[in-house]
């Protein structure tokens, strides 16, 4: 039996410290926590930075380092720093070194790097070792070389290699959500279908229970399946909450693609052991070719944004026509003064309160009493985006719907009116890379840090 303690769905989210203490007291074999996701968009990977505050990350990691020392087991984090790029693996490593000194711990730390050299990935693409997944964007070697960061998603093999270094703490770059939880149970001979399925159920912490905010759960893996037990005082796992978690953020609720195979839960059986614990058996692991998924982000232009508020009833009623006139005036100025062609840049004026969320898919509704006009200029350089933002400003401030009316003035919440958003990043890989051996695209570095 292998007992995995999962403190929270992601380091940086709040979790219940009393539940963590209960988990430590019940003798886990490993503590595993996720650190990231693509869910907040491409900028984190593009920039190689964390979404969560350093102060929050440090406070939560501090408690996990203390829990690890008390439990006397390995602590592993997957997809460190939101995106798992090498730069955020090093960022969390620095935090770990600081904490080891502050806590008087002497620890062995292994970093598992997932970052890829774009030039090497471009060569792999040219050599036919990379193939697209459903809904993958079209790519070429130039697109790949333009990525500011590319990561490969490590599976259990790479996490097992990191654990085998004898590390007290493993800081992994991009991993699949399940890899850090499934690695030890699989290494210790637990049921493969059960190990992968339990890892999927556990990857969001207590999300698969009646009290998601409690964060902490433990999963016991064995030869035939797994048992989920929430550790929050009032949290319960039920066959419904556990089986329904396979729906979450999954395009297919029965099949999960992982490096080296597919998890199939079509035949899984969920049974309540009591009011809080659920037993699961019957999931199947189907081995396949060894591929790892790639994620890459590149710069797709630079943006400047501005916000204007329309409160005048006539302008609220005519908001669409007003924004079309403003955009047309600004376009003429951009062409005349900046020499940019129509396809070199974009101006978008989104009507907040009308259809800013759904755009062309909006199905309609009553007119609001005010409308926010979010102006977005996107251009090849930051300076050009800023210039377009400033060209828009006089029209956003004073443009009148008709020629013969006193000059109107509209509400601006900020000065300066324009905000440079910097680079706009976009995900440009939804592809898999075929590997001869799992460690071919990954590397390990082990250090002794702190002092005892």
């Amino acid at each position, binding site marked *: 039996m292998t007992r995995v303690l999962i403190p929270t769905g992601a380091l940086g989210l709040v979790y219940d410290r009393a539940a963590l203490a209960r988990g430590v007291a019940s003798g886990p074999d490993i503590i595993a926590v996720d650190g990231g996701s*693509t*869910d*907040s*968009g*491409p*900028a984190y990977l593009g920039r190689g930075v964390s979404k969560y505050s350093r102060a929050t990350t440090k406070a939560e990691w501090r408690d996990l380092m203390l829990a690890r020392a008390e439990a006397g087991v390995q602590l592993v984090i997957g997809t460190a720093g939101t995106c798992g790029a090498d730069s955020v693996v090093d960022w969390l490593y620095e935090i770990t070194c600081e904490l080891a000194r502050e806590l008087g711990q002497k620890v062995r730390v292994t970093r598992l790097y997932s970052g890829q050299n774009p030039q090497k990935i471009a060569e792999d693409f040219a050599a036919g070792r990379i193939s697209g*997944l*459903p*809904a*993958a*964007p079209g790519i070429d070697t130039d697109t790949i070389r333009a990525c500011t960061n590319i990561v490969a998603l490590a599976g259990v093999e790479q996490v097992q290699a990191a654990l085998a270094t004898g590390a007290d703490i493993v800081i992994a770059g991009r991993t699949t959500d399940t890899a850090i939880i499934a690695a030890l149970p699989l290494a210790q001979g637990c049921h493969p279908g059960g190990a992968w399925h339990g890892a999927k159920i556990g990857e969001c912490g207590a999300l698969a229970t009646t009290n998601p905010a409690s964060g902490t759960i433990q999963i016991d893996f064995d030869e035939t399946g797994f048992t989920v037990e929430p550790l929050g005082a009032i949290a319960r796992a039920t066959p*419904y909450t556990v*089986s*329904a978690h396979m*729906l*979450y*953020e*999954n*395009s*297919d*609720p*029965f099949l999960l693609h992982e490096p080296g195979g597919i998890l199939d839960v079509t035949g899984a059986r969920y049974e309540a052991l009591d009011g809080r614990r659920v037993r699961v058996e019957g999931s199947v692991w189907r081995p396949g070719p060894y591929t790892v998924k790639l994620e890459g982000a590149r710069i*797709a*232009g630079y943006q400047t944004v501005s916000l204007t508020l329309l409160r005048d009833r006539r302008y609220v009623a005519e908001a669409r026509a007003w924004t079309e006139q403003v955009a047309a005036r600004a376009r003429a100025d951009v062409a005349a003064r900046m020499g940019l062609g129509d396809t070199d840049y*974009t101006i*978008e004026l*989104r009507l907040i309160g009308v259809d*800013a*969320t*759904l*755009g*062309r*898919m909006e*199905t309609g509704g009553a007119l609001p009493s005010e409308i926010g006009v979010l102006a*977005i200029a*996107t251009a090849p350089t930051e300076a050009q985006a800023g210039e377009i933002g400033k060209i828009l400003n006089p029209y956003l401030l004073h443009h009148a719907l008709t020629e013969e009316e006193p000059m109107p003035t509209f509400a601006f919440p900020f000065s300066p009116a324009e905000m440079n958003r910097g680079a*706009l*990043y*976009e*995900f440009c890989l*939804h592809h898999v890379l075929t590997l001869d051996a799992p460690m071919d695209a990954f590397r390990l570095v082990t250090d002794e840090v702190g002092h005892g």
Partner: protein
Amino acid sequence: MVELAEIAEKVRSKNAGPFWLTIDIFCGNRAAFERISTGLDSARVAALFHLDPDQLKRFDIAELNVVKFSLPRPAVQGTRADRDMHGAAWAVLLEELEIG
């Protein structure tokens, strides 16, 4: 004719990675599941998202009283055209859909 939200317990949409969107309709009970499962036409859902019907994946899961759809994201997450980074608001389109 009633809006789906009046029958279903909860409708949730979320990213399934940057390129896919998934929408879970938690019907809440067997009667609601039967009504939604039979009354909700996939072609109408595809039209709502400006998709060809064959781009839409559908799962009717009786054990959970859930109808689930997965589709290529209307705009790839985080691109200039994307308006909803987490894919959270698209559920509303289904909630407001009227079914027989």
